[in-house]
């Protein structure tokens, strides 16, 4: 704006307008780029838009135009899907399994990581490497024998069995993550507590665990995303309908019926809704969790 008020010297009159033009052009370019970026995101989200729109249609056949909102949204298909999926029960099961897995993983992995970081010997380094090598083992490599182990322990088709399996498969990442975090925390606080006569577990509970809070939050969200979206372990380890998770309920509901899109899509919407809610309300932690390991 200053360039518009009368220029005082010869020099300014010659350069200022040119600079303004350049700046305006850049700002305009930025505006266009922003709009294009938003349009690109809209394009990526189109399938989800279609999912919602078509799920609100009523009828036995696909709508001619899957992009148009229905004149009057129809909730009957939602009601049917809700009942067929035993929705509240499935959500409750998933919630139970998720929370138990998160609690078990956080507790065991943070204790182990603490010992690995504060007791640096060759054997703890080896233990750490064994845990971390677990990061690359595809679940399919252990799936069949895991089924056998669960059968021998009478843990097939039980909440306990699937929680142990999830906690075990998440342990490598959790140990890796907590150890990385603890290395950035100085040991002085813990030493002061030890000098005050606090025992090992009290030091952990009162000093270390509270320090880990940001890491714990991120890890818990990681577990939620993992467990909430997984199909393979419930498919193999859980067999009774009453223990179905949400993903399994979606699979079972759709897999056994021939459904029209209007009947199919409400099931999917109900299936993804809880995690969408978690993501949108805790976005900051999710983004932080995804970007773990890439600076701050």
């Amino acid at each position: 704006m200053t360039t518009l008020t009368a220029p005082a010297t010869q020099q300014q009159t010659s350069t200022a307008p040119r600079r303004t033009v350049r700046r305006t052009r850049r700002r305009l370019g930025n505006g266009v780029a922003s709009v294009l970026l938003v349009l690109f995101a809209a394009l990526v989200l189109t399938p989800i838009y279609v999912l919602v729109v078509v799920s609100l249609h009523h009828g036995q056949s696909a709508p001619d135009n899957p992009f148009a909102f229905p004149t009057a949204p129809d909730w009957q298909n939602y009601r049917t899907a809700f009942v067929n999926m035993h929705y509240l029960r499935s959500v409750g099961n998933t919630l139970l399994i998720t929370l138990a897995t998160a609690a078990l993983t956080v507790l065991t992995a943070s204790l182990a990581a603490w010992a690995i970081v504060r007791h640096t010997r060759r054997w703890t380094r080896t233990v750490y490497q064994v845990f971390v090598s677990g990061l690359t083992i595809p679940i399919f490599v252990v799936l069949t024998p895991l089924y056998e182990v669960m059968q021998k322990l009478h843990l097939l088709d039980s909440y306990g069995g699937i929680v142990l399996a999830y906690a075990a498969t998440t342990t490598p990442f959790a140990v890796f993550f907590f150890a990385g975090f603890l290395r950035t925390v100085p040991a002085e606080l813990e030493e002061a507590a030890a000098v005050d006569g606090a025992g090992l577990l009290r030091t952990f509970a009162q000093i270390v665990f509270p320090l880990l809070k940001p890491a714990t939050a991120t890890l818990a969200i990681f577990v939620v995303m993992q467990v909430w979206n997984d199909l393979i372990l419930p498919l193999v380890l859980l067999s009774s309908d009453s223990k179905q998770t949400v993903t399994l309920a979606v699979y079972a509901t759709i897999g056994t019926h021939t459904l029209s899109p209007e009947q199919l899509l409400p099931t999917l919407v109900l299936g993804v809704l809880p995690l969408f809610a978690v993501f949108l309300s805790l976005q900051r932690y999710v983004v932080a969790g995804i970007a773990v390991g890439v600076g701050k």
Partner: protein
Amino acid sequence: MQIRGRSAMALIAPAALLFTAFVLYPLVRGIQLSFTDAIGPNGGAFVGLTHYVHAVSDPTVRRALTNTLAYTVVVVVVQNALALLVAFWLFRQERVRDVVRAGLLLPAMMAFVAVGYLWSYVYSPLGGPLNVVMDALGLHRFEPVWLGDPHTALWAIAAIYVWMFLGYTATIYLANYMAISPSLLEAANLDGASGWRRFRHIDWHLLAPSFTINITLSVIGSLRVFDLPFIMTQGAPEDSTQTLSLVIYNNSFANYQFAYGTTLAVGLLVLTVVVGVIQATLLRRREADLA
């Protein structure tokens, strides 16, 4: 705080027990099973390398292997190239950055089951939205039965994976961009570097940490691809969407051929380790070159 040896053992024990019982033991047991004739959880007489010999000449396994490898190469390259572009774009558009990133991440928050069924509808030859759009654009002649044509099925599925994880990968690149000290990028601007040249000579080097993470994640994820082929095609048409994980699952849990299933699982493990070592060596050499 210095933790004494015995205390350290006690602290590590619960995690170690969990990991040993449900990951390490099954891993070892799986290798052992692959040398037996176990069907379901029963049986298990030693049969030597029979299953391995069989696996090498099994046409379905061969097809699954080539599919998995081709799929991995394409998904890793396309996903990372697109994500780099998007991250570069997001980094410069501060005003819309958070909103757009949230939108692009949304597909990654959906369960594979939901994504699989949703896209089966999108690709449907009977009034599926994709063909509706192509009709509207006058491209009717180029409409294959996306999931029913052996030439397109695998790539139709690959496109969905890219769609799902584009935002995820871009978020990691973007975090790297935002961790770069602004003075470095400013210096680049003052030097008059811009566009492709700036990216090639400056950004590309500074993005090495996120490049390593993203390549590793997408390779690991692609080699074990399972859910979408399982839900959408079951390996059809003509085995064109057969993948190693799918073959393992079907042998073990559809046919109860536990021994053969674990044999293929050992194969997948070897493949993962070999690719992992090659990749780690290359990426480390690259980071060292750039440093």
